[in-house]
């Protein structure tokens, strides 16, 4: 036993006492060799992956709480000695980050609300309302799902700026309002609803609007939440279009403002301020994700596995 110990490595030393002395038994599910194997090939990579993902985010939060002196130093400072929110205050002074946050919130709330409503109404129409060439129209929507809008930046810029949409909320929101993703996801869900419910409502003489609001929407809660959450996250993170269509801090969204901050702050002492900005754009989504990840993961991976 004492010979076998070092070979098993230090991982075995954390095991409970009763599992330490069973090296001679045939390998059962909790045998020493199995436990070591599970640790090395299971828990170790799991822990490693989790740390690789989590540590940069923790580093970001710590960085935002540090003073510039703790960044610009020969020795690495792991934890801020006097954690404070000075960096956030400076971010507010230099690029009025509160304003950027508000702009992002306005664009996200207005844009997502309209998109979700459009997704519900058009998915309902595609499933329950009779219309010629409905299938062709839906394929048109579906193909739009694969067409990247950023590939066509110039034409949208020319159109929106020509209409006076530079540095306006509507200029940021309007081009992204057409929703292929939400329509697709909700249509799939509506098709799976039991037809009896709709027939019953139809026989009762309920109008399409009533059927949509009183029957279809109430029983589609989880899917609508999924569409709403994915839409909110996408709107909040949206970058290339707001970057192109705004050049004034009064209308910039957070990601665009942070780009400006990175451009004007070349010095290493600016990192706390930059990390404060990163926290403001990342943490709200992280909180939503932590609370409702079931819906978000489902929405983003839908259709992948048949």
């Amino acid at each position, binding site marked *: 036993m004492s010979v076998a110990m070092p070979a098993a490595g230090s991982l075995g030393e954390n095991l409970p006492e009763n599992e330490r002395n069973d090296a001679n038994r045939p390998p059962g599910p909790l045998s020493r060799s199995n436990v070591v194997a599970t640790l090395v090939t*299971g*828990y170790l*990579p*799991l822990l490693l*992956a*989790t740390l690789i*993902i*989590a540590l*940069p985010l923790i580093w*970001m939060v710590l960085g935002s709480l540090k003073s510039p002196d703790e960044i*610009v*130093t020969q020795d690495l400072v792991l934890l801020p000695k006097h954690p404070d929110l000075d960096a956030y205050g400076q971010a507010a002074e230099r690029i009025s980050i509160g304003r950027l946050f508000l702009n992002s919130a306005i664009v996200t709330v207005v844009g997502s609300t309209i998109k979700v409503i*459009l997704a519900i*109404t*058009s998915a309902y*129409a*595609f499933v329950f309302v*009779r*219309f010629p060439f*409905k299938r062709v129209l839906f394929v048109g*929507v579906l193909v*739009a799902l*694969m067409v*990247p809008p*950023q*590939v*066509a*930046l*110039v*034409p949208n*810029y*020319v*159109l929106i700026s020509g209409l006076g949409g530079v540095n306006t909320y509507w200029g940021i929101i309007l*081009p992204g309002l*057409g*929703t292929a993703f939400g329509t697709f996801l909700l249509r799939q869900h509506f098709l799976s609803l039991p037809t009896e419910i709709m027939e019953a409502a139809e026989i009762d003489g309920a109008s399409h609007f009533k059927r949509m609001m009183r029957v279809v929407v109430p029983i589609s809660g989880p899917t609508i939440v999924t569409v709403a959450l994915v839409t909110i*996250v996408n709107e909040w*993170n949206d*970058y290339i279009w707001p970057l*192109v269509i705004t050049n004034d801090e009064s209308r910039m969204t957070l*990601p665009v403002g*942070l*780009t400006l901050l*990175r451009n004007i702050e070349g010095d*290493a002492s600016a*990192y706390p301020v*930059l990390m404060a900005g*990163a926290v403001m754009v*990342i943490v709200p*989504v*992280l909180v939503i*994700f*932590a609370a409702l*990840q079931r819906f978000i*993961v489902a929405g*983003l*991976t839908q259709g*992948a*596995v*048949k």
Partner: protein
Amino acid sequence: MGATVTDRTGVPAAGPTKPKRLRRGFTARDRRDFPIFLILALPNILLIMAFIYRPLITNIYYSTLNWTLGSKYATPIGLGNYREFFTDPDSLGVLKTTAIFTVATVGGSMVLGLMLATVLNRPLRGRTLARATVFAPYVLSGVGIGLVWVFIFDPVVGVLGAVLRAMGGTSPEWFNKPGLSLVMVIIVYVWKNTGYCAVIYLAAMQAVPKDLLEAASIDGASSFRTFRSVVLPLLSPTTFFLLLTTMLSSLQAFDLIRIMTPLGNGTTTLMYDAYLQAFGGYNRAGYSAAVATILFAILLVMTVVQLSFIERKVHYA
């Protein structure tokens, strides 16, 4: 029901043909639905046409112009922009960067994602939390993530450099050497997207029939052998799905490149070139439209390839 209303042949509807009859023509009641459809679906359809389809067409037209963004005048130059792109040695670099970035990010996130999925598929404690954690970066702002990694990679004050110095090395010049900048952006992109591949692979693994795994186990196959000969072939539709979706998103990568390497020194992919040409100070709208059209053509080919493979739903052994 209702079949006789539209039955123009006068032949009484016989059982099997009934469903077909129902599709023919529209009744008066059907027609009452038409305006409702338009009210409900038209806004979305018009928005998609105006801001997704129209720009694609317009872009092709713009790509034939010698035109400065903001200028009222443009000169039609036919395929001049394309000729310039394909003869300019810089473009070769752009294509090479695009290829390296795409292959490395797709390969990296898929291989790591598959490895991660096999771990997450085991009955380990805390795997639900781990699954959520590794997926999280996928939904976070690319700009925020990019800033965090700029801070980490900073050769002077970054934590990575500090760790390397502690181990007796020095920090590479991530931001000054074009090749290293590309490596850096690839690392961060893979970090951000591996969780997506892992979760998709995991879902597919959990759909592998248990009896197949039991059969392999009874036949005495090792767990590696089972994975290689049973699980992996069954995952091939998922692999194809991921291969093409991640390829499409890698080709459109923008946020990380823009925030980490604003000048695009060594990191100018087709997507970033299209942006830089129009909005990076040159204002070359026509040339940018040509680059965007080339990128779009590549994306289109990939989508068609994807659709034709999904259509076949094959398993590759």
